[in-house]
């Protein structure tokens, strides 16, 4: 901005609000604020008037009414007699489930494809390029409905598993059943279970916490703590004597033995899905809608992540890998110790923004009938109660909160990496 070294001595005149750079910015800001307030006031007064005309003032009372619709894929226990609030909570959890699952698989596939795109093997690199271009240039909604169609149309129905000579068989040593009604996988069961703790009594937000899970987590935590102690001791010895004691079998023992003992005490076994009547029962039932959404979102996002990974690796200057090779490191170690740590700084921020995109794209669940927060709060609840304003605003608020949390993580990471930089 321009600065005037010798301020003019004349009196303040009204035209200086426009022509004097010292005042002009204030004028512009006041005007901007004024117009913004005017716009906001206009919108709000319109809304109030419209709502009054329709006779439905803003209220969130409908949340305690019974929802009277069913949600087939859920983490917490829920019936159609539960409230709309509980339905929204189930939906939110479903959104998070598909987002987390999708992020994990998208990262795995994306990193693999990104590295393979740089492969020396011409054919492999071309196949990966083809994959990336296919998924990046076709709308994700099309991939989602396509995945759903594949699951419904091309998989065997549970009926095909019956009879003496069934036309379909279960996979992975008869533990997983892939049918056109969904995938049935084994579930962990405890014959001497510690039971559950019911939290928050009878409210809409009630949930059960499995004591078995807590026990497992506690034991796991203790094991990891002990492992770090052992590893710290090994480091100390290495620093003093220059020789590192072999500790991997101690660490393995610390990790596995207590866990195995605990699992035996709890009577851990797997419950396998089995054909009963016209359908499978037992095991965990992953619905088609979840699988289709998960598959399509992770393959789609993986294409973007692959490009990011490739770009990040290419951005590390060639001298780095040459220097590492000159030190005598093997290609695998060059990648792990020299290239990746530097590339990660470049890769992680856009990667997180892709996680954010995946989470937002999971709202397309509504196209395949997966009951995420858009399907419950922004779908059936909204249609049943006719409270569009409240539902859509809340829906936006929920997504905004998730997004801001994720960008908070990203900013924190960016700050941390910046400190490492010179």
């Amino acid at each position: 901005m321009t600065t005037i070294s010798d301020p003019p001595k004349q009196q303040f005149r009204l035209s200086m609000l426009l022509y004097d750079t010292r005042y002009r910015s204030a004028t512009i800001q006041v005007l901007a604020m004024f117009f913004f307030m005017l716009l906001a006031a206009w919108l709000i007064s319109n809304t109030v008037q419209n709502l009054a005309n329709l006779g439905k003032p803003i209220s969130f009372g409908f949340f305690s009414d019974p929802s009277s619709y069913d949600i087939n894929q859920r983490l917490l226990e829920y019936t159609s007699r539960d409230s709309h609030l509980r339905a929204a909570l189930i939906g939110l959890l479903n959104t998070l489930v598909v987002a987390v699952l999708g992020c994990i698989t998208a990262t795995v596939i994306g990193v693999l494809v990104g590295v393979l795109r740089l492969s020396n093997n011409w054919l492999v690199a071309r196949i990966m390029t083809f994959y990336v271009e296919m998924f990046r240039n076709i709308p994700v909604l099309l991939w989602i409905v396509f995945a759903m169609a594949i699951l419904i149309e091309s998989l065997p129905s549970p009926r095909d598993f019956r009879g003496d000579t069934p036309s379909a068989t279960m996979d992975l040593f008869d533990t997983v059943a892939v049918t056109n009604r969904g995938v049935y996988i084994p579930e962990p069961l405890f014959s001497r279970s510690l039971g559950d703790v019911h939290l928050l009594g009878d409210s809409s937000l009630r949930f059960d916490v499995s004591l078995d899970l807590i026990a497992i987590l506690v034991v796991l935590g203790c094991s990891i703590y002990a492992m770090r102690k052992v590893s710290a001791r090994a480091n100390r010895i290495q620093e003093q004597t220059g020789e590192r004691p072999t500790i991997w079998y101690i660490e393995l023992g610390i990790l596995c033995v207590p866990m195995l003992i605990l699992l035996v005490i709890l009577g851990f076994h797997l419950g396998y899905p089995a054909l009963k009547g016209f359908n499978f029962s037992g095991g965990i039932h992953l619905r088609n809608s979840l699988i289709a959404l998960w598959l399509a979102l992770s393959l789609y996002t993986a294409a973007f992540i692959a490009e990011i990974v490739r770009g990040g690796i290419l951005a590390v200057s060639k001298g780095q890998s040459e220097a590492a090779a000159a030190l005598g490191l093997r290609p695998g170690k060059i990648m792990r110790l020299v290239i990746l740590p530097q590339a990660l700084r470049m890769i992680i921020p856009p990667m997180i923004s892709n996680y954010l995109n995946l989470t937002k794209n999971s709202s397309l669940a509504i196209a395949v009938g997966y009951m995420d927060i858009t399907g419950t709060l922004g779908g059936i609840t909204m249609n049943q109660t006719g409270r569009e304003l409240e539902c859509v605003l809340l829906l936006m608020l929920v997504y905004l909160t998730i997004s801001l949390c994720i960008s908070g993580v990203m900013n924190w990471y960016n700050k941390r990496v910046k400190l490492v930089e010179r």
Partner: protein
Amino acid sequence: MSDTHAETVTFVRDTMLPEKEPPLSTVGAIGWVRDNLFSGVLNSILTILSLGFIYYVLSGILPWVFQSVWNADSLTECREIMVATWGDTHGHACWGVIKDRWLQLFYGFYPPYPAHPDANFGSAPDGHWWPAYFRPNLALILLIGAMIPVLFSGAPRKLLYLTAAYPFILPWLLWGGSVWVPLMVAAGFAIGYFAYVLVDRSMSSLMATIAAVLLAILWWVFAVGPVSGALHSILNIGIAPVQSREFGGYMLAIILGVVAIGCSLPLGILMALGRQSDLFIVKTLCVGFIEFIRGVPLITLLFVASLLLNYFLPPGTNFDLILRVMIMMTLFAAAYMAEVIRGGLAALPKGQYEGADSLGLNYWQAQRLIIMPQALKISIPGIVNTFIGIFKDTTLVSIIGLFDVIGLASAIRADTAWNGIYWELFAFIGALFFVVCFSMSRYSMYLERKLRTGHR
């Protein structure tokens, strides 16, 4: 001279040997294959696995694509033909559905003869020999013409007039109606321009800008309706109007994409500048808007367009859904565009801003002549990616009940004749989007190469 030396060196070559060809196994096709496909054990295994994979995929897809039925009016007929020809119904595409419904997939329910509501595509009313599909087609051709001078610097500059006129031609061609409305809207810009020129002579340029904007807005709000109505009653020139609810198909995706892309770039630039500015309130407003839009999924904004916008506007306003969707998609695209351009602005060295200041340029001059050309150049890949993203996201309108290609695919499947047809429709729709998005990304690569003016 020692004798030993003379004895040991018995032969000294004093001419060059002729150069030999490199071994056959390291050059040409064989060398290339050895280098790129079979350079090691692992590489060879990967190559063989990939070949197997490619064979597996192609052996499934190619027969499906090419051993297919084109001439059929329903899926049952398709299957009968397949059984008669190949003996089974699996592994053969039924492209009959595309042949039967391609008009619908491209144009949705756009009326072929809008002046005659009862006429359908098969039966042309008297005096009409071509259907109104020429209107979207012409709009597309003009669009390409209008884009050429923007996209390629070698194109004739005169085409820029078409570019300037295009925003008025597009709605008129698609929605139809009196020719006077777009002309009068365009006249608003002319009025603004003349007001600017006149006031600029007598007063400052700031006053001229304010006067121009005010006059143009007054003209659009109060004069366009009556004046064009009067002109229409004097001289009735126009084409038959088409309702927006009849828009659909791939045409809808292109319209929404073009409008959102065209409007979001200037809006995005403004918001990026606002976000970078020193003015606290302007900056806060821009940041709040951008982060809000980027934090919510597009589908919730489309819900706002289809359900809530009527609450926010004065009672009784009811303007059409496509327009509302266009507004929301533009805002959505603009927020992403603003972030991309902000990245470009941030990547410019500070010396560029200081250099512009030291030349005595004011803010807008500096932006126009120094900052923006460089910032936009840096952000081209990001801008094109946003374009591609927006174009793909236009498919989401099928969720709020508009009949874009994906919505039409379900509608076609709901028809008894084509009940149960999936893959042909998906393949067709995917190909439509792939062609456009892929060309966009290739164009951005071309532009990047062309604008790389050194530094490397």
